């Protein structure tokens, strides 16, 4: 199968191309993608060349900011999981997981092993649902020469149906564990409001087993795509734990050897505002460099922590670690679906409902942080609470905010080789690169820092 590099029927905006800047006689060319397609949320891309040289590459994020951190202030700490879950319709569990772990750190409580496993199971449901959608309906069309899943479905209905079938089992897990599948409401600081019953979970085993086979087939399928030959020399960042593939536990590790706890996150990574985005961008404070989060970062660091089926599959398809080709993220994502289904089966087969669904606590003043692995990468939360159990301060840094500047850097690296192409082709290839990241723009715009200057 080939990656269509020159199809000209994409929906990218037709860019205005200017021959010269009358003020200085320097030739300029502007390429604009008005609205990125097949990404979550609203964003665009501006590229400007001056005298043939790349001048500006800006991932424009213009979705309105939503001020969630301000909304949290003064609210009872117990509300953080449900309020922050509303930041994203695609990955609400990730917000719930980071918020409960950060709150529990502030309160000094540690739920037991059974709650830890249930949380992993819930997270697996979200990974399966989110990754399956992206791999099959949003990203695969790029490699098969289609404008989108609709066009692909006309020729390959079975492939699209397979993605939907895999996704469905993830949704079922969310429904059983989350109390309801639509924005789960069963997650609590300290554990769960109710222990999920064993029967609905065990009844899901045959469906999960079928989904596992489908996910294996899908991974072999995407591994056969033609990928552009790209090596981006990423600085990758993800959680690492010696015993488990990263979800909720572990230290934050970088590919150049730095290892920290979440308490040091804001010392190692800094957010900055840029004029063209309503979302903050992030860089390393020690190197000033961008960094990559998400499936590729996780597989590169944690390949040995994949469960056996996923690990053997990585070997079988000839996965080379480390992989620094963003286009191969679709394979990493597919391997993670296999892992998530395999881990779900493992947890369900051993599951016994915990006697007490959550650890009780007394509010106390304190501060706590946590980072967990959302489908798109590391999601950081930090809270300060007072003696009355009210939130005094909240800081939330989603993965797409952190990946933004890395996306711009990738675009800068790839653009020089394609500048002889038409504007439409350049725009279309840039969109394909951006889609590799599965960006969630709605998450990234949850916050805007407002500086008020008084005279």
């Amino acid at each position, binding site marked *: 199968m080939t990656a269509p590099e020159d199809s000209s029927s994409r929906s990218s905006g037709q860019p205005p191309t200017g021959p010269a800047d009358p003020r200085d006689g320097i030739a300029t060319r502007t390429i604009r993608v008005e609205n990125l397609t097949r990404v*979550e949320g609203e964003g665009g891309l501006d590229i400007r060349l001056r005298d043939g040289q790349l001048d500006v590459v800006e991932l424009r994020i213009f979705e309105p900011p*939503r001020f969630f951190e301000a*909304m949290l202030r003064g609210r009872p700490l117990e509300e953080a999981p449900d309020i922050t879950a*509303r930041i994203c*319709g695609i990955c609400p569990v990730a917000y719930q997981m980071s918020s409960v772990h950060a709150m529990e750190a502030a309160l000094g409580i540690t739920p037991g092993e059974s709650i830890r496993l249930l949380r992993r199971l819930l997270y697996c449901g979200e990974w399966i649902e989110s990754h399956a*959608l992206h791999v099959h309906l949003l990203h695969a069309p790029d490699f098969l020469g289609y404008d989108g899943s609709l066009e692909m479905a006309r020729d390959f209905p079975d492939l699209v149906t397979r993605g939907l079938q895999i996704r469905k089992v993830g949704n079922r897990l969310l429904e059983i564990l989350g109390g309801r*599948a639509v924005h789960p409401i069963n997650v609590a600081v300290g554990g769960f409001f109710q222990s999920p019953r064993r029967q609905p979970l065990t009844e899901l085993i045959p469906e999960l087993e079928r989904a596992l086979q489908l996910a294996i087939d899908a991974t072999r399928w995407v591994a056969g795509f033609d990928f552009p030959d790209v090596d981006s020399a990423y600085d990758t960042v993800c959680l690492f734990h010696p015993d488990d593939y990263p979800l909720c536990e572990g230290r934050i590790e970088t590919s150049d050897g730095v290892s920290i706890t979440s308490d040091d996150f804001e010392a190692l990574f800094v957010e900055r505002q840029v004029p063209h985005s309503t979302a903050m961008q992030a860089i390393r404070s020690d190197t000033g460099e961008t960094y990559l989060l998400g499936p590729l970062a996780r597989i590169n660091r944690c390949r040995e922590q994949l469960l056996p089926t996923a690990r053997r599959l990585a070997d079988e398809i000839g996965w080379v670690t480390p992989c620094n080709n963003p286009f191969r993220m679709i394979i990493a994502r597919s391997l993670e679906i296999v892992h998530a289904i395999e881990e779900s089966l493992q947890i369900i087969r051993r599951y016994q409902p915990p006697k007490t669904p959550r650890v009780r606590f007394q509010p106390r003043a304190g501060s706590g942080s946590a980072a967990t692995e959302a489908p798109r990468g590391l999601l950081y939360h930090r809270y300060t609470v007072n003696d009355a159990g009210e939130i005094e301060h909240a800081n939330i840094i989603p993965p797409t905010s952190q990946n933004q500047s890395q996306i711009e850097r990738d675009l800068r690296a790839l653009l020089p080789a394609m500048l002889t192409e038409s504007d439409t082709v350049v725009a279309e290839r840039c969109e394909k690169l951006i889609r590799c990241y599965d960006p969630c723009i709605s998450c990234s715009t949850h916050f805007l820092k407002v500086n008020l200057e008084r005279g």
Partner: protein
Amino acid sequence: MADSRTSTGSCRVRLIGVGSPHGDDRAGWSVAERLAELDPQKKEEALPMGRGGVSIVSVATPIDLLEYLDGVEQLQVCDAFVGDGPAGRLYRWLWPEAAIEQTRFVGSHDISLAAALQLAESLGLLPAQVVVWGIDVGPSPCCVPPASADRFSTTLETGIRAAVQQIAAELSQWARHA
């Protein structure tokens, strides 16, 4: 994704509320919830729920509706959209109708309602009759829930009640002629 309080089993008519917990985008869910809660003791209100009758679900993104089409003879979808107002104005469209594609349904999540219905049609999943109920939330909807109670504006609330009434009447009429 199904609301666990409603039946998702075998049915002939499926009513799907599309939405989220975000402000006015909850309108589709609210209609679904209120339809599910209609008092079965009141003859004029009662819907023929369950097997062989009506089933009601809520989904967070339009693509999720593809999970609930097996064996369905008629699909009814209710979703909020950003329009010119006034908030609460109710529209009824029969699929396929150009207005569905041109309407900006609230929420930008991945695949639009029109795209999801087209995809379902491509995969041969769509029943013969598809009705889309659109609730206009006006040009500037409330996207974030208020910190206290999740309430709709008075005009939008009126529209939601009208939607419940009209959809219930249509479903009851269908049941009588089925």
